[in-house]
């Protein structure tokens, strides 16, 4: 390793994709497998340039199916691993994201969203994969997804994603978009000692007593790596605490609800949101990623008219802050939900307010950020 090249402490003018790569390195990621795709390729380019300086392994795989499988393999070799992609590649990764959820494999997947469906808008933004992030792989599982709205947040949230992924042994998703990935802004990289990095939950006891899928109290089991002498078996089949396949309803009942509950029951510890002026708000804008930033301009316009507008900016999108949204619902005339899709997170908001207040979607099909005046108009309309 080249001395002092691990964490580039200082102030930088850096694009979001590069900041994401730096966040991964700072979090201890040392294996990256990916496949080129706009607008995420710059992450791979940065990693391929930086990894030799920190003894990491970069490999460009033959496709996204292979990329996702490779980072799972690397994680089981005991190395923190990541891939990055955009819509079409994210679709291809879904099956092995499910394998990651089933085998409880820590890893990070970055999706720099572009407009879809299909090849759609390869070079411009969308936020259309938010529900795919939650439900994209088949079967029941819970996932963790974060939504950055700036290069700084891409740095910070990538570290956060690694930490959550290790803490809960689940693939963690960083759901960026083309604009946050490609914009350049100030990125402050703190000194190493100020960066909190959560280590792997390692089992170090005797092999004969080890049950690889016996959970701790918080429902998360401890992990070992291949090559450490534990002779583990890891399978995507429904399995018992030993890790052995058991294909019946009883084993399924024991395993799958735990995979779901280790996220649901720890949701309050996982969820982070940023609230602004929600205490005395008449209307709340709930948004995430780049749309949250556009919303701040709309809020300014509304405040000039004397409307009290609060903001809930999602840091974790999944699990969703359903309790807090419900609490706020009884205090406000309505929620405005701007997002660059034809309505995804708005359904989650509607579910959580349980009919207690109005919910308005400000939709944009992709290719551009919102005109803040559209969000402003929606705020006004709530109070009509």
């Amino acid at each position, binding site marked *: 390793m080249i001395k002092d090249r691990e964490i580039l402490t200082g102030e930088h003018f850096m694009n979001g994709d590069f900041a994401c790569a730096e966040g991964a390195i700072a979090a201890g990621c040392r294996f990256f497998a990916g496949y080129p795709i706009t607008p995420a390729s710059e992450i791979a380019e940065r990693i391929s340039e930086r990894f030799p300086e920190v003894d990491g392994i970069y490999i460009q*795989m033959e496709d996204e199916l292979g990329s996702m499988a490779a980072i799972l393999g690397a994680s*089981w070799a005991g190395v923190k691993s990541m891939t990055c992609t955009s819509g079409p590649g994210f679709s291809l990764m879904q099956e092995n994201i499910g394998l990651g959820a089933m085998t409880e494999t820590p890893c990070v997947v970055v999706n720099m969203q572009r407009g879809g469906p299909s090849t759609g808008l390869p070079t411009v933004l969308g936020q259309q994969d938010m529900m795919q992030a939650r439900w994209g792989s088949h079967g029941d599982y819970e996932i963790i997804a974060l939504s950055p709205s700036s290069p700084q947040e891409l740095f910070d949230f990538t570290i956060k994603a690694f930490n959550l992924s290790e803490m809960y042994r689940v693939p963690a998703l960083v759901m960026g978009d083309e604009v946050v990935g490609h914009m350049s802004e100030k990125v402050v990289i703190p000194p190493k000692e100020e960066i909190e990095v959560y280590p792997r939950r390692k089992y170090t006891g005797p092999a004969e007593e080890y049950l690889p899928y016996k959970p701790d109290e918080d429902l998360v089991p401890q992990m070992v790596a291949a090559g450490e002498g534990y002779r583990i078996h890891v399978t995507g089949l429904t399995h018992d605490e030993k890790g052995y396949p058991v294909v019946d309803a009883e084993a399924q009942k024991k395993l799958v609800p735990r995979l779901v509950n280790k996220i649901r029951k720890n949701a309050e510890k996982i969820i982070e949101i940023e609230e602004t002026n929600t205490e005395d708000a008449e209307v709340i804008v709930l948004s995430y990623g780049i749309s949250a930033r556009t919303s701040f301009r709309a809020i300014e316009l509304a405040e000039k008219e004397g409307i009290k507008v609060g903001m809930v900016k999602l840091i974790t999108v999944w699990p969703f802050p359903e309790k807090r949204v419900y609490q706020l619902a009884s205090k406000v005339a309505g929620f405005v939900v701007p997002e660059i899709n034809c309505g995804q997170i708005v359904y989650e908001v509607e579910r959580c307010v349980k009919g207690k207040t109005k919910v308005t979607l400000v939709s944009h099909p992709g290719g551009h950020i919102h005109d803040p005046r559209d969000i402003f108009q929606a705020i006004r309309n709530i109070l009509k």
Partner: protein
Amino acid sequence: MNEKHPMDYLLREDRIPHIWCPGCGLGSSVSCFIMALEDSGLDLNKVVVVSGIGCTGRVAGYINLDSFHTTHGRAIPFATGLALANPELKVVVYSGDGDLIAIGGNHLIHAARRNINMTVICVNNFLYGMTGGQVGPTTPLYAKATTSPYGNFERPFNLVYLAAASGAVYVARWTALHLRRLTKSMTEALQKKGFSFIEIISPCPTSYARRNRLGDGLDQMKFYHDNSIIRHGADPKEADIGFQTKIVVGKFIDVERPDYHTFLTEGLAKVVGERK
């Protein structure tokens, strides 16, 4: 009667009986493999078995080593991650022809091209066994399968030719009858650094033999006995397998080429070292 078999320590006894049909060649291939593991002299705590999906995909679950039973077709990229993230590991991919050649074919050629340090053992029963005997990319011309009821009209892959052309440094083919020779090849492959590939032609009495009226497992073994031609160093191009034709077996390729991790790290050390 409770005497332990000397190889039992390499099997997960608590998972036996296995799921394989009587007459299937998988069991004997696994016997060869565990003998090869012993003969290889490798530190068995550093040997990892990765499987995909299907009958052969279950091998990982029966062998008492670190083992991973992954998704359909993705055993090789999963193994690539393991092998590159920890180069001390010897990674063995043990899977079937449908898994490795059809859905996972792209990964096979690229892992061979890169010369990733892994041994791929491909058990070829000429069709998809676990799902009921459907046609696949290795089904011989005119052979019947549940989805080629009038015979197969797709030209199959010649696996040893495919592996060799893609860059494998070790390529061998045996049938499930050639236990001693197969064990030797497996041992050599385990000891070889780089991408090694072994094809094992295996009887599938339940699906392949029954549908094609080839008798039971024993009849298929008899066929291998009468029709295998051992030809070490043969041109893999000349080793096509047709329906009930002669089967050329042996060691086709055994060459030296630095494996990807070694080549990469040594190359980078030169370049990045200069940047210090």
